[in-house]
């Protein structure tokens, strides 16, 4: 499949650093809140993801896994 990320919603604290770090601007803080009460991040348009890991490295809570799709 294609490049994409997975965000562990329960680890996410909704800090928004991944949002600010994504060069494709395809991460947003969602409307829903997780068990800890945070608006967790979601990847809104995986198709544009380039698997650059910018989001993942900037996440203090190591909530993001990045996958590179097979061409």
């Amino acid at each position: 499949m294609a490049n994409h990320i997975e965000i562990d919603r329960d680890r996410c604290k909704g800090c928004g650093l991944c949002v600010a770090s994504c060069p494709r601007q395809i991460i947003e803080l969602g409307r829903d809140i997780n068990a800890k009460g945070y608006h967790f991040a979601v990847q809104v348009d995986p198709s544009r993801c380039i698997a650059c890991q910018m989001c993942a490295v900037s996440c203090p809570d190591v909530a993001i896994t990045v996958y590179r799709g097979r061409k």
Partner: protein
Amino acid sequence: MDANDTAVFTYPRSLSRTPTHYCPGCLHGVAHRLVAEAIDALGVREKTVGICPVGCSVLAYKYFDCDMIEASHGRAPAVATGVKRARPDLVCFTYQGDGDLASIGMAEIIHAANRNEPITVIFYNNAIYGMTGGQMAPTTLVGMKTSTSPTGRDPIDRGAGYPIRMVELLNTLEGPVYLARQSLLSSADIFRARRVVQRAFSLQSKGFTFVEFVGTCPTNWGMAPVEAREWAQKRMIEVFPIGVFRDREAEAAKASAAKEA
């Protein structure tokens, strides 16, 4: 998802799965991950002993998945000295905040560096005492308001001192093998920081290695995490410049290459 997709960024083995108590957007988490990645990269998790300080990272013993020792405030380098003198075969790192390392622990860090103890010191500089609620730290910028510098740190009229640059200070000593400062304030910086931490760990057997991270404390700075990162990029980096200040091995390699040439 496709089972054939390769995970190119995954959770480090040396980081435990316990969620941290850090505030949202606090870069302690990033620093932890980088350390764990370095331990993984070198494959030394099972012979690593980490030492955590007193500060927000006091609970780091829960977060690293290797043997951990909780030190008293500021004394982690002394504790690490004890560890490595007893067991030189172990890999040992300390993880310390700026209050811990540069205020109460000043003598311990300088002397461990001067003895060239084979340890790796990870220094998280957020220019404030996070855990105790935002008091002035030795690295607090001039003019920065904290709960004990309510009018802004004032070195002139209140004798509150200037931000102390630990890497530069340690760089006057003969001991250390590796001294670097890196920022955690953007993804690009973090990629660089990753290499620096790994370099530090890989040189540990040669002697004292030290990495300062310029981080943030969104909570006590009273800023949103993204804003804190930007503020730090604008204000902290000019006071705490980024770079590898010393790499004795690289210098030696260069020197011997020059000789051969």
